[in-house]
């Protein structure tokens, strides 16, 4: 199903996922995922909750240990015990639904700590890079604030700046706007759009269909631990080929429309 995504030269894909399986106990959440993300490509992963899309993202930088299969990040096989995972992770930024900012550090401190401790940058250099990134996400006037003093949208933008301060080659977003008040979503999406237009390789798990349609190059629809369908975003979202994709999109785009005849087939578990 994902054959169209395989590039002519596999070496060009910063993310290569093959036969990825993940079980929690007897519950198999991912049932064989093949997916490539090309350099500079923005891929959105959509699907109903419980479909395994967040687990897929967390398997990419090995926050979850895959049960089987292969994940190659920037050419390194992440499931190989000999690979220096911390080294690879410095090139892969991750943004979480719950922000996960460090509450004991200011916005600047959040953006500096890993630069200094992991990349061994000098304090002056780390400070300069942190300031640059916080300014880029529109928080030049909030740099000395602790997370508790920032709104959700501001916190998530600090989290993006924190990830960008490591100069990542790939950015992973795990439902970055799902915990935000609706009026704060726009600021975060705007930052992500800028990032996409600047050529960042991005993998985004999201429920924001407008963002997927307008910003991402490709959208992947997952359900019950498999990739059901994928394609160019505008095409997949406006004209999905698979029945399950159609039902999901109809529900997401028009939540008040409930067709009883569809309910039976949509819940595979």
């Amino acid at each position, binding site marked *: 199903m994902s054959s169209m995504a395989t590039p002519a030269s596999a070496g060009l894909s910063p993310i290569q996922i093959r036969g990825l399986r993940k079980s929690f106990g007897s519950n198999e959440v991912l049932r064989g995922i093949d997916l490539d993300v090309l350099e500079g490509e923005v891929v959105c992963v959509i699907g109903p909750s419980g479909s395994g899309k967040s687990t897929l993202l967390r398997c990419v930088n090995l926050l979850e240990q895959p049960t089987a299969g292969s994940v190659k990040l920037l050419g390194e096989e992440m499931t190989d015990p000999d690979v220096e995972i911390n080294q690879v992770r410095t090139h892969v930024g*991750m943004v979480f639904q719950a922000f996960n900012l460090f509450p004991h550090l200011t916005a600047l401190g959040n953006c500096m700590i890993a630069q200094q401790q992991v*990349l061994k940058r000098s304090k002056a250099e780390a400070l300069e890079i942190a300031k640059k990134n916080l300014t880029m996400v529109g928080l030049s006037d909030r740099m000395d604030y602790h997370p508790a003093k920032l709104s959700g949208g501001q916190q998530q933008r600090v989290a993006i700046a924190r990830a960008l301060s490591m100069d990542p080659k790939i950015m992973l977003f795990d439902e970055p706007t799902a915990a935000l008040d609706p009026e704060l979503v726009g600021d975060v999406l705007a930052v992500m759009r800028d990032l996409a237009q600047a050529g960042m390789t991005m993998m985004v798990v999201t429920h924001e269909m407008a963002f997927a349609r307008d910003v991402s190059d490709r959208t992947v629809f997952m359900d019950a631990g498999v990739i059901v369908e994928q394609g160019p975003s505008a095409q997949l979202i406006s004209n999905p080929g698979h029945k399950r994709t159609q039902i999901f999109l109809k529900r997401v785009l028009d939540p008040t429309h409930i067709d009883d005849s569809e309910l039976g087939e949509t819940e595979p578990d």
Partner: protein
Amino acid sequence: MAVLKLKPTQRARAGRLLSYAVGIGVIALVAFTADWPKLQHNFFNPDVIAKIFPNIIVIALRNTLLYTVVAFVGGSLLGILLAVMKVAGGPLSWFAIAFIEFFRGVPALMTLFLFAFIIPIATGFQFPGGTIGAGLLGLVIVTGAYSAEIIRAGIEAVAGGQSEAARSLGMTQGQTMGWIVLPQALRIVIPPMTNELVMLLKDTSLLFSIGLAAPDRELTTFGKDGLSTYASATPLIVAALLYLVVTLPLTYLVSKLEKKLDPKR
């Protein structure tokens, strides 16, 4: 029986008044029947007080505070080490668990005996600092075992997302613990650790049982020696009051800290 016909609020009020009346009656009885000059002679004798000052301050109170600080600093560092070992898993955590459970399960007094008497007698090994050195080591170990459990709970109270965020930035397990988790955990455990400090201050009185040289005496030993020397309880009463002078403000501080730190960090 008439009380039973009253409304609950009235009954409670009547009960309160009755207990006040009884209390005042007991106090009055004691006040009128007690032999005040004799009581004062035995428990608050000005002559004895004049003799024990200033040594009860400059030696005994000073030593009590010094032992408390030394054992608290040492015990907290040991507690952090044990807590980190325990959450790390593997053989390290088995060692930490055995250590913590042994010294929490055995009376503190036994631990002091272990270092002051049992080990030196059984092995001929003398701890640096002699008896008081061994005693302080015992207090450090007891405090370490107790604070390890407090700090471990603090570590586990830091949300898992914090570790994930740190690991996703490429931090090692050690960097994540040292820079992200521990700073937050230690903030969380400030109230229970202050409580531990109060307990430790009182537990320095156990050092009495291992026999301290005159310049090493802390408040309880000093008070007990005074009891023998002057045949008056006055030194012990003064020692008890000096404990309260330190513990009551600390206890008050704990309740303040708990209120301040509890709702949000």
